[in-house]
C-alpha cells in the first residue's frame, strides 16, 4: 500500500466527517438548494475531465474527454445558476426585513 493511497484515504474520510458536520446543520427549508449546490460542487470532476484531455491521443480518448468535460461543465454551471435562482426566492417579509416572524402583526400588503 502506497503512501499516496493512505494520504488520499485520510483526506477522504476526514472530508466525509466534515461533510456530515456541516451539512447536518442545513435546515430542511434549504434541502433542495443544498442538493443543487451539491450538483455544482461535484462538477469539480471537470478538473478530472480536463486532465484526461492531456493524455488523450486517439479517437476514443477524445470522445471520452469531450463527453466527460461536457457532463461536468453542465453540473458546474447548471448547478450554480439554478441554486442561485432558488435562493433568490427565499425572502424574509418583503416589506419589513427586520420584523421577526409569527407574531401575527398586520404587515399590510405582502406580495
Amino acid at each position, binding site marked *: 500500500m502506497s503512501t499516496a493511497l493512505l494520504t488520499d484515504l485520510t483526506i477522504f474520510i476526514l472530508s466525509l466527517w466534515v461533510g456530515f458536520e456541516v451539512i447536518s446543520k442545513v435546515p430542511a427549508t434549504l434541502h433542495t438548494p443544498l442538493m443543487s449546490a451539491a450538483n455544482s460542487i461535484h462538477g469539480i470532476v471537470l478538473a478530472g475531465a480536463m486532465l484526461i*484531455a492531456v493524455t488523450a491521443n486517439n479517437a476514443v480518448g477524445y470522445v471520452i474527454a469531450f463527453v466527460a468535460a461536457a457532463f461536468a461543465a453542465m453540473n458546474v454551471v447548471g448547478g450554480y445558476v439554478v441554486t442561485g435562482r432558488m435562493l433568490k426566492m427565499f425572502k424574509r417579509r418583503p416589506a419589513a426585513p427586520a420584523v421577526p416572524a409569527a407574531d401575527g402583526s398586520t404587515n399590510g400588503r405582502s406580495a
Partner: protein
Amino acid sequence: MSTFSWITQLLYVLAASCFVLGLHMMNNPATARRGNQVSTTGMVAAIAVTLAIVIHAGAITATGWTVMLAGTLVGSAVGLYYARTVQMTAMPQLVSVFNAVGGGAAALVAIHDYMRLTDAGIHVQTSTTVTTLLDVIIGSVTFSGSIIAAGKLQGVITSAPVTFPGARVINALLAVVVLGTGGYLIATPSLLGLLAVIIAALVFGVLMVMPIGGADMPVVISLLNAFTGTAVAMAGFVINNWALIIAGALVGASGGILTKLMADAMNRSIRNIIVGGFGTGDTAVAAIAGSGSIQSVTADDAAIQLAYASKVIIVPGYGLAAAQAQHEVAALADVLESRGVDVSYAIHPVAGRMPGHMNVLLAEANVPYPQLKEMDDINPEFARTDVALVIGANDVTNPAARRAGTAISGMPILDVDQAKSIIVIKRSMGHGYAGIDNELYSDPKTSMYFADAKTALIELTAAVKTLVG
C-alpha cells in the same frame, strides 16, 4: 515535489475550503446565497489551477485542447439553458439529470485512465484497479438509475412501480458478473473486462430504479446524489487529485444525510431500501375500524372558520405540489393575514418530490421563509391553533402512526389532530401511499372539503373575501 506542484496543491486545498465554507453558509437562508457564491469562487479557482496544470504539462495536443474547450462550452451552455428555464415543480428531474451526468463524467474519467494504462502496457496497481472499479460501478449505476428516475419524475416513464418476475435473479446475476469480473481484473488487467462491468452496472441502475414508485422519489434522488459524490471521490483516487476527493466526499456526505432523513421521514430503513428494493413490502395493511363518520364542509363554512381564526397552520402535501396550487395557497394566506390571522406552514420532510421541495415551491409563490416551519418546530404549536388546513397531505397527518401495529407505526407525523379544528382539502377518500385509512378524517373536529387543491383554494379565497367584504 516541485514548487509548481506545491502551489497547485495548496490552491486545490483553498478551493476545497471554499466548498466547505459555502456549504456551512447554507445553514441559514439569509447567508445561503453568499454561500453559493463562495463555493463557486472555489470552483473557479480549482478550474484555473487545473488549466495551469494542463498548460504546464505541455503534453496536450491541439485536438486535446479543442475537445476540452468544446466539451466545456457545450456542457456549460446546456446547463445554463436548463438552469434558467426549469420550472420549480420540475426541480427533482433537473437534479436527477445533474446526478446522472456527474456520475457519468466520474466514470468516464476512470475509464479513460484505465484505457491509457492498459494501452501503454503499464502495470495497473491493485489500488488503482479497485478505485477504478468502484468509480466505474457507482458512476454507471448512478448514470442509468438517475436517467430512469428523471424519466419517471417527468412522466415519460410510468411513475408506478414496474416489477417483473425474476428481477431478483437478474440482479443477483449482475452482481455475480460485477464481482467476478472485478476480481478477475485485479489479477489480469483487461479493457474488455471493464466494459462488461460497465454494462452490468448500467443494467443494474435501470433495474434498481424501475420498481420504485413516485412517492419514494425523495429517497431515490438523495441516494443517487450520494452515489454521484462517492463516484467523484473515487475518480479523485484514480487520478490522485485532492480536490475531487474532498468535493466528492462532501457531496457523498450530503446525499447520505438526506437519504437518512428521507428514509426516516417515510418510516423505512436505508438497509430495507437498498437490499430489499424500493416500493416493495409496505403492503401489510392493518385495518382500523374507521367507524367514525365523515363530515364534509362547503367553501362558505370553511371560509368562516378561517376568517375568524386567530391562528391558522397550513399543512401542504404532495397533492398541493401535484396540483401546482402553491400560488393559490399563498393568495389565501395573504387574505387571511391582511385580516390579522397568524398564518404559518407546517412542512413535513417528505412533502413534495425531493428533500425540501415544498419550501422552494412556496418560496416561489412569495411566502416569506420565516413562515415555513419544520416538523419539530411546528408540532408544539398545533395545540394553540384554531384551524389546521390540510391540503393534499395524507399519511404524514395520520394519528395512527403513534400506535403500534399499523403500516405507518413510528413514522414521524405532524400533530394536526391537536388543533382545535381541522379542514382537509382532498379530492376523494382515497388512501395515501401506505394504503390505510387516515383516522384524522373521521375525527369529530375534522371537516372534509372534497375538491381539487387548486379549485378549492380559489373558491376558499373568494369566499373569505366576500365574507370580509
